[in-house]
């Protein structure tokens, strides 16, 4: 009676069920046809190659490891400053620094394979051919359970327009990758578009087995004193809790329009409650990026926390939450 009336009087509360033994909660999910032991994955570019965090805990506990985007050729990336902190968020402009797909296959993947990690390879490029070539190199590599296509890259053949901003450009990339890939393909989309649903429809038509929503939002910060942009690159990607409401909206919109399309939710997830929001909005699994910078143990903490959260509420399978939103009207 004394608790918050705003919070405690939903017209339809979650039905009170008997709490469960946490060990009995089934955390397994399917993401685009791939079975994961739990719905917590890393976000591309926020986990390097895996070894770094393995110093803290066994990273194979994670549902999957989405590795940093790799390109056909090695990339040095952009000069510093590459990051700036913003309210409840951060801007980054790394410039896709990576050793190139061949070096990645030779040096980074074997460790992940040895450890038995479930690897989602993220690929990037500046032309349809770039993407296709990289996808081809990954074919048949054990341990790679899916390919995530980072469409937030400028298309050099289209005056630098970002692929994910154009339905047709995105489609071409996805079709080319799909043709090369031996595993499910996830198209990673940006929220910086007028109509994310139409882009999602386009990539699914082109053969994507699922979508990752969302990449960073394009943002900027300026040093008030010097007038210099806080990033060498002037613009950068905004990530972290600040963008979570935007990410959830994208996931919900796409899930409402395309309920059968698997979604890897991403953007600002940090707490168990955040993960539950993503699942309810329609994500089958949740990729955690910036939160790892703040808390190296965020992955195992979320896995354990989700188990307890479900157990206390009598939710036997985490998949019961997926898409479960109760509209007011």
């Amino acid at each position, binding site marked *: 009676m004394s608790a918050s009336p705003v919070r405690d009087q939903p017209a339809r509360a979650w039905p009170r069920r008997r709490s469960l033994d946490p060990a009995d909660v089934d955390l397994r999910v399917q993401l685009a046809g791939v079975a994961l032991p739990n719905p917590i994955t890393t976000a*591309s*570019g*926020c*986990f*390097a190659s895996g070894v*770094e*965090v393995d*110093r*803290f*805990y066994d990273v194979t506990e994670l549902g999957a490891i989405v590795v*940093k*985007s790799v390109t056909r050729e090695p*990339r*040095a*990336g*952009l*000069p*510093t*400053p*590459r*990051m*700036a*902190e913003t*309210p*409840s*968020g*951060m801007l*980054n*402009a*790394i*410039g*896709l*620094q990576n050793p190139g797909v061949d070096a990645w296959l030779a040096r980074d993947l074997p460790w992940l394979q040895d450890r038995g990690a479930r690897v989602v390879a993220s690929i*990037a490029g*500046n032309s349809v051919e770039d993407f296709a070539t990289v996808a081809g190199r990954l074919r048949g590599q054990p341990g790679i359970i899916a390919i995530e296509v*980072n469409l*937030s*890259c*400028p298309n050099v053949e289209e005056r*630098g327009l*970002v692929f994910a901003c154009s339905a047709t450009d995105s489609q071409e990339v996805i079709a080319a990758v799909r043709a090369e890939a031996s595993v499910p393909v996830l198209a*990673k989309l940006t929220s910086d578009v007028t109509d994310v649903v139409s882009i999602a429809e386009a990539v699914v038509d082109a053969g994507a087995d699922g979508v990752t929503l969302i*990449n*960073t939002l*394009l943002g900027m910060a300026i040093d008030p004193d010097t007038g210099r942009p806080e990033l*060498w*690159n002037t*613009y*950068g*990607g905004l990530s*972290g*809790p600040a963008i979570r409401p935007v990410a959830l909206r994208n996931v919900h919109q796409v899930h409402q329009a395309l309920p059968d399309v698997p979604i890897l939710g991403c953007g600002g997830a940090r707490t168990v409650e955040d993960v539950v929001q993503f699942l309810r909005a329609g994500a089958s699994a949740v990729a955690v990026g*910036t939160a*790892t*910078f*703040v*808390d*190296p*143990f965020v992955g195992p903490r979320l896995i354990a926390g989700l188990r307890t959260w479900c157990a206390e509420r009598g939710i036997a399978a985490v998949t019961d939450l997926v898409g479960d939103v109760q509209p007011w009207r």
Partner: protein
Amino acid sequence: MSTQRSGTVQGRPDLDTPVQATCEVLDRRREGAYWVLSFAAKEIAERAQPGQFVSLAVQSPGALLRRPFSIARVSQQGVAAGTVDVVFDAHGPGTEWLTSVRGHDVLDVVGPLGRPFPMPRRKVGCLLIGGGYGVAPLLYLGETLRREGLRVDMIVGAATQARLLGVIEAKRLSASSVFTTEDGSYGTQGRVTDVLEAVVAHGRTGVVYACGPNAMLRAVSERCGELHLPVQVAVEERMACGIGVCFTCVLPIRDRAGNVHLRRACLDGPVLNGARIAWEDTRYGAPSARTPAGEGGDA
């Protein structure tokens, strides 16, 4: 007798891996223009080496990321065993917030992180050059070098007397110590590089260790290059993660073949061979930043 006062600790048992620990604050006091923060962190203290850093979660409103600080001192013995000190300059919201913590508050700390200062392989004179709060890890290093029986000389610089850190400790620790202030309010007027050559000659220096603003580290590295002296510098770069996963903290490093690679300051550093840093490709201490061309917006 050791007192274990730290809280939850997460991490592998190996002594060469960092941990995350909730640590009780023991003390927070002023020291000149700076603040010294001491906290109980047994697992970090027993792993730490000079030049490594810890990253602290701060609770200032809207702040998201941890703040990195060099380890200034660890206590291995006595009642204070397991204590870690950092020295900081309060100049932004996160460091301002840190000035408000009190004894018995709990801090969330990750560490020790990064590559420490390498010990000299031979018995040589060691010159330690610190600027501002950069002196803090050098005092820690100096103690360690002295325990190894090595000669330590020090140059300590700052803009002005109030910002000179560790004058007494430097004098106690080193065979000779020289102080520089830009305004001449204490010691020699000028910069650390102005006195470097004289101290090197005098102290039969075989290796130089430096920590301070990157522009100073550049000047020191370049001067040491001219003098054919090995130099190890502890750099600072904006760090989002401090653990090697974000690639925001890179510096251009020249490999033996002369090719430049962007290396993570939090993992391959913060202590780096000053002669290997391609300073001309950084934005530090030069009129204009010459940098490899980037490939546009990042994701």
